[in-house]
């Protein structure tokens, strides 16, 4: 804690915070070379390729699944397109058992941690292998084994939860932290302010990672805040902050690596603002042509984070056009085949309607369920998803396998 003595003045002098103008940390140019004076973080070839493969996986998954939504196979989808470096670069700088609390556009972090295409698909189709038991809309992933908290649609609720989770990690003393993702729109919610203040007061090992992608659905950042982005707010809470080029995987990685060190070793919470762009629509329900221009999108397409990373890999001789072609073909094939399988799997058991509301199903809910089952038996044709469920037919229940 600094102990600068407050200065007294004798005329009404206001300050507008202009002195807090924050610079942007960049390492990697679009052509894959480093900025002069920039030093790349120490990343092994193996790790660099793990990052890159997760980026390409995310991009291809997003392309295919949006197409699947357009074909009517899927009710809803959200793409991470354009933000892969911000999400995957930050996840890669963590320990794999640090906690991640995401908003909903961070499937790249899960892909990096090793969530399989099959696991993605089971959630997207809400089938009987979906860990979330078909209860949530597509893209609301979660994985206990990969330390990835299940997504909740309400915005910003995860931010103070991250502060609390990380406080628990601090008490546990195992050297872990929590990284929480959110957008610049969600940062307007009261939960954001509560989270940062509590983290600073209680010296919590949490990294607040803001994906400033320019838009909250249709609302541009210029209508979200009058200030210079989200970063300056950290000063108000006495928190360390860095702004980074979100399309620069090396800068994101290095900033997060350093932030993690501060969080875990010194219990200093950190705010990272990654400047990027939501190249896709907000979701499959949205059409950006109503609120932004194709020209604006084109400018950001030029800054594609995956191509930038690819150029960097090639400059090291770690990647070739052949390998790229092979990876893309393999992923497209895998996504397609896995999708077909996932789509064919049956829906979750009827019983999942009433389980997990509480640890044990309360008697009143059980009674409602008995009534529902009798009703479905009287009208099996009206309930094609559950008419053949063991709870209706009386045949034995097949158990769900796999570690979530």
């Amino acid at each position, binding site marked *: 804690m600094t102990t600068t003595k407050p200065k007294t003045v004798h005329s009404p002098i206001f300050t507008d915070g202009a002195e807090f103008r924050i610079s942007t940390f960049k390492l990697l140019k679009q052509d894959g070379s480093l900025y002069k004076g920039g030093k790349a973080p120490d990343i092994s070839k193996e790790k660099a390729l793990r990052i890159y493969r997760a980026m390409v996986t995310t991009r291809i998954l997003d392309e295919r699944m949006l197409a699947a939504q357009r074909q009517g196979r899927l009710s809803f989808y959200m793409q991470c397109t354009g933000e892969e470096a911000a999400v995957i670069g930050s996840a890669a700088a963590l320990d794999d058992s640090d906690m991640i609390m995401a908003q909903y556009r961070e499937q790249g972090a899960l892909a990096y941690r090793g969530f399989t295409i099959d696991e993605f698909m089971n959630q997207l189709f*809400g089938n009987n292998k979906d860990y979330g038991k078909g209860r949530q809309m597509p893209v609301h992933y979660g994985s206990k084994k990969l330390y990835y908290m299940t997504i909740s649609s309400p915005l910003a609720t995860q931010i103070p939860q991250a502060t609390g989770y990380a406080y628990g990690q601090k008490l546990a003393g195992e050297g872990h932290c929590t990284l929480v993702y959110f957008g610049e729109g969600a940062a*307007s919610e*009261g939960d954001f302010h509560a989270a940062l203040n509590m983290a600073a007061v209680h010296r919590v090992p949490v990294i607040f990672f803001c994906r400033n992608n320019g838009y909250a659905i249709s609302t541009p950042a210029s209508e979200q805040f009058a200030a210079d982005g989200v970063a300056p707010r950290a000063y108000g809470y006495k928190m360390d902050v860095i702004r980074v080029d979100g399309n620069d995987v090396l800068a994101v990685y290095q900033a997060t690596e350093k932030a993690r060190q501060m969080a875990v070793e010194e219990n200093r919470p950190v705010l990272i603002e990654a400047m990027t762009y939501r190249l896709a629509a907000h979701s499959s329900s949205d059409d950006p042509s109503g609120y932004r221009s194709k020209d604006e999108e084109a400018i950001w397409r030029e800054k594609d984070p995956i191509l930038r990373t690819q150029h960097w890999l090639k400059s090291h001789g770690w990647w070739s056009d052949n390998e790229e072609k092979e990876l893309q073909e393999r992923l497209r094939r895998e996504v397609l085949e896995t999708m077909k399988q996932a789509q064919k799997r049956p829906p979750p058991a009827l019983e999942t309607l009433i389980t997990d509301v509480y640890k044990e199903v309360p008697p009143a809910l059980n009674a409602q369920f008995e009534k529902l089952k009798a009703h479905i038996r009287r009208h099996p044709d*009206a*309930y094609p998803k*559950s008419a053949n469920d063991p709870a209706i037919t009386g045949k034995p229940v097949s158990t769900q396998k796999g570690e979530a």
Partner: protein
Amino acid sequence: MAKMNMLQAINNALDTAMAANERVLCFGEDVGIFGGVFRATSNLQQKYGKSRCFNTPLVEQGIIGFANGLAAQGSVPVAEIQFADYIFPAFDQIVNETAKFRYRSGNLFDVGGLTIRAPYGGGIAGGLYHSQSPEAYFAHTPGLKVVVPRNPHQAKGLLLAAIHDPDPVLFFEPKRLYRASVGEVPEEEYQLPLGKAEVLKEGTDVTVLGWGAQMEVIEHAVEMAEKDGISCEVIDLRSILPWDVDTVAESVLKTGRLVITHEAPLTGGFAGEIAATIQERCFLYLESPIARVAGLDTPFPLVLEKEHFPNLLKVYEAICDSVEF
């Protein structure tokens, strides 16, 4: 008269109110140039300017706190919460502020000009957080009015009444019917009464009561029941708070039976309040227990939405059970 869907009728009501009174303002997340995620506020910014129709930052408690202040100042804010599921950050502003502004100041100040619009309800593959029906939470709060329209004509008339009403009104719009419900709507200004239920169909054997999107479910269930020779009286409650006890009681005194349906979970749902009041008023006339057809006591699911939903078959069976009791 013009043919409109419910969104067009709501947009038309807002347009009508803004044209008639320059103190009427519309704001919320994405309501500006984009016209809202459902386009209920389309063209209002273009027509009335950015100072009267605008995007807010993404903060529901801020939107309603801001709206409370505006209403206290004498403006007529119509605040949009993008989904009723996202109203809860504003719960404190609504329950502790909006609802108690007049009472706590001894009528020195009020926020009577405030209307809060929010799409509610399921049946759109929205899962936990795009399907909820939170009317009962707010019905437990004296000082609020809670209104739910069932079709475009009702939506325009009730929304204009809500905007003009001297008390704050929560206006829950059945989003499942936004585009599905189409009907004739007068182009000029008109208001429908708040706090008054409407008897949609007279009958003698059983009263079937609901509001909002459930009225469509009731309509189909009643068609089935009438084929079995059951004469149903159908009532749209329209206002949840204050609610029209007299119209419902009068009907039940005649039919002796009552089936109430809502999408929200059974326990603590508003049907419970209606059932308690009606058994007080009609005890000796009741020929069967008052039946409730509601969502299960669980969060709203996704894949098994149909099983969870108080659909027409469930309402139909409840009607039959009530008559055959």
